[in-house]
């Protein structure tokens, strides 16, 4: 998008808060309107005007519309629907606090918001480990523990692990394919501004009693507990809408906005992984929204979808929930794996091994992920005839996953490994994901799963795939792209220190959990049998080290942001398009339209053409490496 017209410079820094303040104000007005509407309707039917969950649901529905319109949808978009001219947004640093259309600004907005929430949810994990220092629970009551565990789970799973998609997807997919922005910049901004209400809902749920059903919210508990469960459901629906719009945008962008010469066979592998994740986000998220809608209706409207006593079916919830939530794991992990392959290729200084097979792996996972969900439900009491088919499909999905893994190993094999912090994290992913993948087999096989289900074995496996693959890839990506996003270099020694502390802390925290699970320690329970205390103390201490490693990370980033050395356009001597422009890239990404004529990873291939040339073809020797 071109925005040549500029507003006059804002009078003071406070003016940056104007859109936010207007969003809050309009949001409150919408909330009041919704509550008043319900009050009138209920009073008309001779009932009390205020009904906590009903009033909040309708107030929230209108409140979120008010928030979005106030924060910028009206000025930058909505006016157009009524034949009026739209207004320009702020420039300068204020654009990070406004409804800004530049995908790079939105990427930073996502990344900053999600990293804050990630650190917060990490603090909840520290509380969990503090509690488990003692078999009877060291720091809080069992009810509080359940709520802390639930908060940790949902903030991590729903929000924090979306950092790669929301942050890097927005910032780098358009640049990597040679586009000047995403296909729908306004929808993109809308997706981001749906996120703050999610955070507000999850963190204010305590005001109405919180919720204690974990991140999975199974009925019947989720129909019986405090009203915090309603906040949870509304937050999920809101975040789901944001992911759906994001997925739609990425798919359209990748299909339509590629630069001349950027064929499907020349797409950087990270873009392929984003494409796969976007398909999953676009389609399957609706099932989570549908599950939450039914849950809300069961709570506020007297329906009986999940009420066994009224003829409903609680197991239905699990089917619908996992039909989304298993693919959701891939929504998080696929971009992580794509980013890992990307970093491995650049830092091994050789072509990505089996590029086409890796792409096939991503697309194969997309296809298979729709038919594996019930492996989460082997002990749920579902129809026994479903167990064998889902066991088989789950085992089969390790084939495309294996293709990606082999691509990673083959890229490292005989490579000229350039050990820098991003590379360390990428190799960490390879190590961790092997353990995460292999232990998954025992959970996919029903006979072993019956014994391991709901123990710490599951916790360990899950964290090996999500932290081990996704969060390690996220960290690698942050160090890899930090010079591009900020124009400054991070501190290499601190980066490597962060890696080693995090890698050792992570493995020493979660490896013993497999043992704990095999010895019968239940997950999601605030207490355990005293004979397991020794290992639990060890796990907790290692967990604290893992948490402490992020202090180094935050310190390094903040310090480098201000005092880091100038990074230059291409500190990694990498071939992909983002490194062919200045750091940070100009507003429209490329000073001239890029032309793509080679494969992105042809390092050391004699006679290979440059991946992409920005500007006149053959004009600069800087890009012909």
């Amino acid at each position, binding site marked *: 998008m*071109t925005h040549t017209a500029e507003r006059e410079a804002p009078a003071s820094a406070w003016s940056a808060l104007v859109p936010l303040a207007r969003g809050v104000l309009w949001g409150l007005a919408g909330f009041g309107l919704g509550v008043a509407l319900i009050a009138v309707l209920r009073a008309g039917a001779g009932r009390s005007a205020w009904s906590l969950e009903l009033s909040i649901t309708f107030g929230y529905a209108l409140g979120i519309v008010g928030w979005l319109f106030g924060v910028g949808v009206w000025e930058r978009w909505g006016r157009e629907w009524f034949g009026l001219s739209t207004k320009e947004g702020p420039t300068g640093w204020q654009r990070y606090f406004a409804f800004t259309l530049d995908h790079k600004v939105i990427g930073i907005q996502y990344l900053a918001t999600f990293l804050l929430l990630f650190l917060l949810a990490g603090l909840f994990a520290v509380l969990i480990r503090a509690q488990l220092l003692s078999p009877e629970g060291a720091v809080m009551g069992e009810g509080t523990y359940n709520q802390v565990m639930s908060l940790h789970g949902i903030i991590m799973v729903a929000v924090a692990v979306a950092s790669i998609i929301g942050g890097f997807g927005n910032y780098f997919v358009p640049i990597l394919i040679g586009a000047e922005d995403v296909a*729908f910049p306004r929808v993109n901004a809308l997706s981001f501004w749906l996120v703050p209400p999610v955070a507000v809902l999850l963190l204010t749920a305590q005001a109405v009693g919180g919720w204690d059903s974990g991140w999975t919210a199974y009925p019947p508990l989720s129909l019986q507990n405090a009203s915090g469960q309603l906040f949870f459901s509304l937050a999920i629906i809101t975040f789901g809408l944001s992911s759906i719009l994001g997925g*739609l945008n990425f798919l*359209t962008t990748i299909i339509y906005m590629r630069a001349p010469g950027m064929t499907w066979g020349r797409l950087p592998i990270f873009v392929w992984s984003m494409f796969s994740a976007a398909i999953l986000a676009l*389609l399957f998220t609706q099932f989570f929204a549908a599950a939450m809608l039914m849950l809300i209706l069961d709570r506020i409207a*007297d*329906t*009986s979808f999940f009420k066994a006593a009224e003829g*409903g079916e609680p197991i239905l919830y699990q089917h619908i929930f996992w039909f989304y939530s298993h693919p959701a794991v891939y929504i998080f992990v696929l971009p992580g794996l794509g980013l890992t392959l990307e970093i491995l290729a650049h830092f091994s200084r050789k072509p990505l091994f089996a590029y086409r097979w890796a792409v096939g792996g991503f697309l194969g996972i997309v296809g298979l992920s729709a038919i594996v969900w019930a492996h989460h439900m082997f002990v749920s009491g579902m129809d026994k005839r479903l167990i064998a088919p889902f066991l088989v499909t789950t085992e089969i999905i390790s084939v495309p996953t294996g293709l990606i893994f082999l691509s990673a190993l083959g890229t490292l094999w005989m490579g000229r490994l350039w050990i820098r912090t991003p590379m360390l994290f990428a190799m960490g992913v390879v190590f961790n994901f092997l353990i995460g993948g292999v232990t998954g087999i025992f959970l996919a096989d029903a006979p072993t799963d019956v014994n391991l289900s709901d123990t710490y074995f599951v916790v360990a496996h899950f964290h090996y795939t999500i932290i081990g693959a996704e969060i390690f890839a996220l960290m690698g990506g942050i160090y890899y792209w930090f010079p591009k996003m900020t124009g400054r270099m991070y501190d290499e020694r601190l980066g490597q220190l962060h890696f080693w502390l995090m890698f050792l802390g992570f493995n020493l925290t979660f490896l013993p959990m497999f043992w704990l699970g095999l010895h019968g320690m239940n997950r999601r329970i605030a207490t355990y049998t005293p004979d397991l205390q020794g290992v639990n103390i060890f796990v907790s201490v290692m967990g604290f080290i893992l948490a402490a490693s992020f202090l180094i990370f935050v310190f390094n980033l903040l310090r480098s942001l201000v005092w880091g050395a100038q990074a230059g356009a291409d500190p990694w001597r990498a071939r992909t398009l983002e490194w062919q422009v200045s750091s940070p890239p100009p507003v429209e990404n490329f000073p*001239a339209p890029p032309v793509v004529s080679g494969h992105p990873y042809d390092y050391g291939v004699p006679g290979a053409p440059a991946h992409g040339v920005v500007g006149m073809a053959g004009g600069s020797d800087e890009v012909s490496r």
Partner: protein
Amino acid sequence: MAVAAAHADVKARRPGINQLGLWLFFASESFLFSALATARFVIAGTDRPDELNQALGLAITSVLLLSSLTAYLAECAIARDDRPAFLRNLLATIMLGLLFVAGVVVEWSTAEFHLSEPYGSAFFSMTGVHASHVVSGMAMLALVYWLGLRGHFSAKGYWGVEATIKYWHFVDVVWVFFYPALYLVSW
């Protein structure tokens, strides 16, 4: 200038981009509707209460199908710059939509089964979610009508009309699946 050329290129691709975005949105929405339809068969099987008002069901279905025809005629009219026919058919579509919603309201207030029965849960939530889509479609049609009155849209550019009417057809198609799932299926 090269940057300007790139802009022209994106501009040329814009119709395709918009179409794809719209169809992806429909694909996504169809997953929401199929989740609801799945729930209906899981909790209530193929049960269907005898008290269901079949005449009313058939009537509102016909009204909605008819509204897709008038919507189509409206789109054809603006494509050949026939503004009076465009507005006329648009208005007819909105009126038929209103009639459909009125039918749903009558159905809801006279239904002899309750929300808390399995079939009732499915019936009220499926018709409710569908009707909310109909209402949002009507709001968009009304906006298009208002803009059309003020001289917006022409044969050269009517994407806003096309998108709204495609959405209307989509909501109609959903009902083509919901109607038999709620009114006709029995075992």
